[in-house]
């Protein structure tokens, strides 16, 4: 998972955000020493609850930048993902997807799937960017863990978005494939070779299928009021002076991003 830590490291640097403001709740157990080098606050939480936990962190202290990293997002955490997107809770969700078909782009994958991928052998995976987009996520992108530069730039860009951003990272997860030695790098390379960059593609068309190369890139980049924005606006309207807006007004933190 070090490639994700590296990407986070670079992304945070590029976004120009003070590291102490960043919290990373994750259901993937990262190595403590690696996390320490990031200089952020890290929480390893029960499977699937990264977004819900992150929602609490963000609402408890709106100045935090929260980056839920989710390995079990596609299973236990699906509900928190769709609702977080709907609310447009200001979170950057890194969704680590380790699904792989037996064939991708017509080529056989380096191994036939283990019995326990996040899905049974014969199931189709989610089209995560499409799902996120349909629920209201303001930013969706997909990269493989080998697209290090692009992934870091995406993280930087998404960190400066207001609302729920989702970056799907195709990477072998620690839980499912750890029994298969040496698969990680091989699989990554395979992903890398069998993906094609399609920025701004309609998320509807980026499903991962056995017949096509994997579409990577940034698919959604839009603006919507965040949960805290709506909360403040609505309560100020109704309660007037009795209500103190929650958190500080949005700061513009643009660095290297070209938000639309």
């Amino acid at each position: 998972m070090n490639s994700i830590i590296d990407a986070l490291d670079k992304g945070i640097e590029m976004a120009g955000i003070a590291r102490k403001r960043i919290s990373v709740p994750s259901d993937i157990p990262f190595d403590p020493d690696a996390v320490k080098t990031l200089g952020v606050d890290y929480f390893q939480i029960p499977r699937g609850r990264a977004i819900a936990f992150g929602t609490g962190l963000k609402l408890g202290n709106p100045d935090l930048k929260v980056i839920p990293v989710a390995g079990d997002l596609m299973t236990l955490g699906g509900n928190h993902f769709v609702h977080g997107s709907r609310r447009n809770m200001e979170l950057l969700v890194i969704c680590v997807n380790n699904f792989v078909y037996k064939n991708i782009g017509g080529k056989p994958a380096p191994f036939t799937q283990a019995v326990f991928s996040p899905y049974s052998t014969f199931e189709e995976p989610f089209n995560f960017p499409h799902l996120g987009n349909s629920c209201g996520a303001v930013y969706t992108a997909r990269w493989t863990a080998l697209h290090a530069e692009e992934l870091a730039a995406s993280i930087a860009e998404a960190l400066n978005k207001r609302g729920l951003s989702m970056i799907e990272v195709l990477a072998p997860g620690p839980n499912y494939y750890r029994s298969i030695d040496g698969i990680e790098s091989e699989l990554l390379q395979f992903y890398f070779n069998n993906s094609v960059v399609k920025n701004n593609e309609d998320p509807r068309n980026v499903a991962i299928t056995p017949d096509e190369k994997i579409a990577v890139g940034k698919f959604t980049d839009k603006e919507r009021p965040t949960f805290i924005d709506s909360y403040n606006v609505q309560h100020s309207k109704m309660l007037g002076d009795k209500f103190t807006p929650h958190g500080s007004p949005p700061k513009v933190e643009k660095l290297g991003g070209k938000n639309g």
Partner: protein
Amino acid sequence: MKADKAGVLTGSHVLNGNQACAEGALAAGCRFLGLYPIVPSIEVSERFLARAPEVGATFIQMEDEISALAAVLGASWTGKKSMTVTSGPGLSLMMEHLGLGIMLETPCVIADIQSVGPGLGLPTHAAQGDMMQARWGSHGDYEIVALAPSSPQEMFDFTIKAFNFSERYRIPVAIMSDAYVAQLEETVVIPPADQINIETRRYYEGAKDSYLPFKRDKDFVPPMVDIGQGYRFHVTGLTHDDRGYPIMFEECQEYNVHPLMWKVRNAVDKIVEVQETNTDDAEVVVISYGATSRAVLKAIKQARESGIKAGGLKLVTVWPFPEKRVTELAKKAKAIVVPEMNFGQIVLEVERNGYGEANIFFLPHGDKGAEYSEDILAAIKRASQTSEAKSGIIEIS
């Protein structure tokens, strides 16, 4: 009835506990597995899935443990014996549907391969920290049957037992194993199908239009029907009458829920099973269950060799708790030692049923996992030497 040959892999096999559990399920006639993978229970599912096509069983990997148990309950009403398998965190998520299973009186089996908790704990290390959870973890009143196997052979045998209890009493039954037994590889003897006794589902046999889904027999167990037979019955998790229709008065609550306790409490003598070693003349009785009882056997032998009259009571069924037997032993013995891989759960039951008759020593989770016979031996020695009566539990650190 005898087991269906299709599921019985007759012969002598080297299996680990998890695999034996899957074989036991198939032998017992389990034909549906709802699962969500979690360490250290994964091999149960792997084995089941690998064997499913040839046995004619089905399975589904759900999105979480909540839905895994929900699917199992649904599948059970189709007439298939069903089970799910999990570990601590998953069991916690299943708690709501354990209650639904109780209320719908749905037979099913939940295998819990315990590891160290709370929270995420140590997923690969054995513990016995979910024992009380199985009994009390869901809201509202219920009674459960829980079995604690201590070897792969028992994983096989007890899984069959579990299915039989669940069909007999129409309740969810828990197999409370642990990571140690689950990963232990030993020889498992699987007998021929015609030597395995299987409890079949007790179907309703009366006239179709007078079927009432919760009309109980004299043991407070209602006979069941499958879906799709034209009964067009209704069942609900709300408090209900014999028709399965919700009625929310205290009278109905009493009518509905109290018998859910009785059907287990009244059958305690038929359900409870213990295994005893040298208890006849024992001055110190070691009460244990699951993996721990393996170390206990060794410790008892050593204690006897050093002249201490030690005996052992192994709980096959932890729930319902063998209250009477424990009381009898407490009266005979000077002291009781309870080693558990937790910080005090079943020992509280021992204390309750000891009636202050014997000193009770508790040996909490050692650092050595399930293999701590030396600690147990030391505890036996100490217990045999303590002469004055103490009230409460004496914890050995």
